[in-house]
C-alpha cells in the first residue's frame, strides 16, 4: 500500500511544476491536504494544473516564474505567502538539460544557461524560501539534484556540474539551518519518464532501449515515484534527515 501523508493546514511550493516530477509532486502535496503554489516559466501549463486541483477541491495558485531571474523568485515566494500565510515545504525542481556536447565544444552561453536555471535557480529559490522559513522557525526544503549530481556522464559536463553544485549547496545550507527548525535535503532522481527525458530521446541524445538496458531495475522511473520520495523527505518521519542527497534511481549509482 502506497504511504499516505497528511499535510493538512500546510503550504507547499513547487518550482518546475508545469510537468514531470514537479507536477506530480505538486499534485501529491495537494492530495495530502497541503495548499500548493505551482510555479513555472510556462504559466499556461501551471494554470491548467491549478484549475484541475481547484476543481478537485484542493487549494492552489499558479505563478509564472523564471528561476534564473531572482526578482521573479522573490515575487513567487511572496505570492505563495500572500495566498496561504506561510510556507512549510518547497520542492525546487525547475531544471533543464542541454544537448550532449564534447566538453571541448561546449559554449559558454549554454553552460551559463544551464547553471542559471539548475544551480542559481535553486540557490535563489532556497534563499527566498529560507527568509520565510527562518521567520517561522520551521520548514522543509527538497532541492532537485540528479544522478548527475553523483556521477559523471560523457557529454554532460554542464548539466552534471550544475547538479553536483546543488548537492554542495544543499549540504551547506542544511548545516546552517539544522538546529533552526528548517530541514534541507536533495533528491537525486535517475532516468524518469518525463517530458525532459522524452525530448532527449526525440533529439537523438538518448537511446531509450540502451538506457533501459543499463538501468539495474530494467525500467524508467515514474514522476510519481519521485513525488512519493519528496513527500517522505518533507514529512515529520524524516525529522532527523538533514543534508542528504537521496538517490532514487533504480540502482544506477549503486553500480
Amino acid at each position, binding site marked *: *500500500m*502506497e504511504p499516505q501523508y497528511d499535510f493538512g493546514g500546510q503550504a507547499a511550493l513547487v518550482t518546475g511544476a508545469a510537468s514531470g516530477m514537479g507536477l506530480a509532486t505538486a499534485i501529491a502535496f495537494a492530495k495530502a491536504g497541503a495548499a500548493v503554489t505551482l510555479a513555472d516559466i510556462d504559466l499556461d501549463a501551471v494554470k491548467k494544473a491549478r484549475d484541475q486541483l481547484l476543481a478537485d477541491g484542493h487549494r492552489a495558485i499558479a505563478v509564472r516564474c523564471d528561476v534564473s531571474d531572482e526578482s521573479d523568485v522573490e515575487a513567487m515566494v511572496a505570492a505563495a505567502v500572500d495566498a496561504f500565510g506561510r510556507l512549510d515545504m518547497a520542492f525546487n525542481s525547475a531544471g533543464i538539460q542541454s544537448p550532449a556536447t564534447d566538453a571541448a565544444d561546449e559554449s559558454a552561453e549554454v553552460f551559463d544557461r544551464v547553471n542559471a536555471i539548475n544551480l542559481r535557480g535553486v540557490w535563489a529559490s532556497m534563499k527566498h524560501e529560507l527568509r520565510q522559513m527562518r521567520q517561522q522557525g520551521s520548514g522543509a526544503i527538497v532541492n532537485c539534484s540528479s544522478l548527475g549530481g553523483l556521477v559523471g556522464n560523457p557529454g554532460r559536463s554542464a548539466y552534471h556540474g550544475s547538479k553536483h553544485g546543488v548537492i554542495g549547496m544543499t549540504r551547506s545550507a542544511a548545516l546552517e539551518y539544522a*538546529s533552526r527548525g528548517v530541514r534541507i535535503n536533495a533528491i537525486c532522481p535517475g532516468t524518469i519518464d518525463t517530458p525532459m527525458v522524452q525530448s532527449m530521446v526525440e533529439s537523438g541524445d538518448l537511446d531509450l532501449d540502451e538506457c533501459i538496458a543499463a538501468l539495474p531495475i*530494467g525500467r524508467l522511473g515514474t514522476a510519481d515515484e519521485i513525488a512519493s*520520495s519528496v513527500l*517522505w523527505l518533507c*514529512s515529520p518521519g524524516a525529522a532527523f534527515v*538533514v*543534508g542528504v542527497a537521496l538517490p532514487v534511481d533504480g540502482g544506477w549509482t*549503486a553500480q
Partner: protein
Amino acid sequence: MTNPTNPTFEGKVVFLTGAGNGIGRATAVAFARAGASLALVDIDEAATEKTAQLVVEAGGKPIGLRADVRSEADIKAALGKTVREFDKLDIAFNNVGRDQRVAPLADSTEEEWRFIYDVNVTSMFLCMRNEIPIMLEKGGGVIVNTASGAGLIGIKGTAMYATAKHAVVGLTRSAALDYADKGIRINAVAPGIIETDMMRRVSGGTEEGRANMVAEEPIGRLGQPEEIASAVLWLASEGSSFAIGTTLVVDGGHTIR
C-alpha cells in the same frame, strides 16, 4: 510522528533481526502499528519478549525467535519458522549490529576484529543469502540493512566498526544490483548518533559524555530510534519503489560536514 496516515503494511510479513532493543524494537513497533505481521529475532530471548509485548500493545501479532545471526543454521531455522507461521516473507530488516571497544587500531585484537566483522557483516550476508531464495519463490520482497554513519566516514578509535559498516554499504549496493530486476529491492539505512543502549555505552553512560555527543550534532540533539524506524518503513514501502542500492542517511547532518 503521525505520517504516513494509513496502514501501509497490512497483510505484510516482516523478518526483523536485532529486535531486542533500540532501533530494532522501535522499528518492530512501527511496523506493527502500520499493520504488519512480525517475526522478531534476537539472541536475547528476554529482550525479544519485551519487544513482542510492545508489538502486541501496538496491535500486532508477533512471533519471537532466538537466533545468533553469526550462525547460518540459526538463521535458516528462524526463517523456516517464520514462513511456517506466516506462509511468506515480504520484508526483511537486517539490523543486528555491535559496537567495538574504542581503541586505536594497533591496540585492537584479531579476536575483536573477527567478532565485529562477523556480527556486523557476515550476519548480513548470511541473512540475505537465506532470505532472498524465499522472496524469489514468493514473487519478490524488500530488504533493508542497517549500516551506520560510520559506514560513510571514519571515526577515531573505531576502525573495526567503521570497516564493518562500510562493508554493509558495499554489500547492500552489490546485492541490490543482483536482484534489482528480479523483484527484490535492497537498500540500507545509515543511522547517526541515536539514543540507544549502544550509544550510552559509547558515550560512557555519563551526562557529560552525552553532552559531548550532542555538541557534535549539527541538529543540536541526538536522534530517536523512532526516527530510524520511520526511514526503514519508507524504504520498505511502495513509496520507495525506485530506490535501489541506496544508503539512506538519517543522522541530523553529522556526515555532511
